[in-house]
């Protein structure tokens, strides 16, 4: 099975997105789906050219994805596992179910 590709985007792809990715990875582990997803960080310049199934980013960078069809999730607190669960978990589980 191909793993679900979850992209995390910030300006340079190495600071805040890295922190958000760590929080997201924690949630994936706690939900026991970490083996089924692949998370990666990308900078704002190359983000739209990537192959991904779902994107996490901040409100300021959401405009980059105006024309893409994949689900977009805006996170306000990059350190909050609760916010990631609330906004992203249903979408991730639905994707995994549909692509078994």
């Amino acid at each position, binding site marked *: 099975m191909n793993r679900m590709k979850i992209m995390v985007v910030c300006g*340079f792809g190495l600071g805040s997105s890295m922190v958000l990715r760590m929080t997201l990875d924690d949630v994936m582990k706690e939900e026991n789906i970490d083996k089924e997803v692949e998370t990666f960080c990308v900078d704002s310049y190359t983000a739209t050219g990537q192959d991904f199934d779902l994107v996490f980013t901040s409100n*300021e960078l959401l405009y980059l994805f105006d024309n893409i069809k994949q689900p977009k999730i805006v996170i306000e607190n990059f350190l909050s596992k609760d916010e990631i669960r609330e906004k992203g978990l249903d979408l991730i589980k639905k994707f995994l179910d549909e692509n078994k």
Partner: protein
Amino acid sequence: MLSDYLNEEMIRLKVKAEDWEDAVRQGGSLLIDAGFCEDRYVDAMVEAVKTMGPYMVMAPGLALAHARPEDGVLGLGMSVITLETPVEFGSEKNDPVSLIISFGGVDHESHIGMLQALARFLMVEENQEFLRNATSIPEVLDSFKDY
């Protein structure tokens, strides 16, 4: 451990800052003074906020200031400053900011361990609260030893 990446020279508590740019520059000056980056790296951190918006304010009251390795990083390093009076970055949800972490990485990988330790510490909300109110640098360093 988080304390491996920070010492007394890299922490300033209850700093007075005029605005967000002044705050970012003060955090960055600790990196310059310690030899972790060139002056232009701090200019690049400020420029990043100006051009891409305040996305670096990644949690309520908390900014992670940085730029790219090629903007003048000389060595892996991080600084922590708290502000006496919080400043506005223009972040709709996460202003005002009273805690600024600045860092520079030499590539896209080598700072991951440092950020991981930092995130472990910051994910505990009481730790953020402690840091914001702290007045003793040795106490802060001591709290970093558990992460």
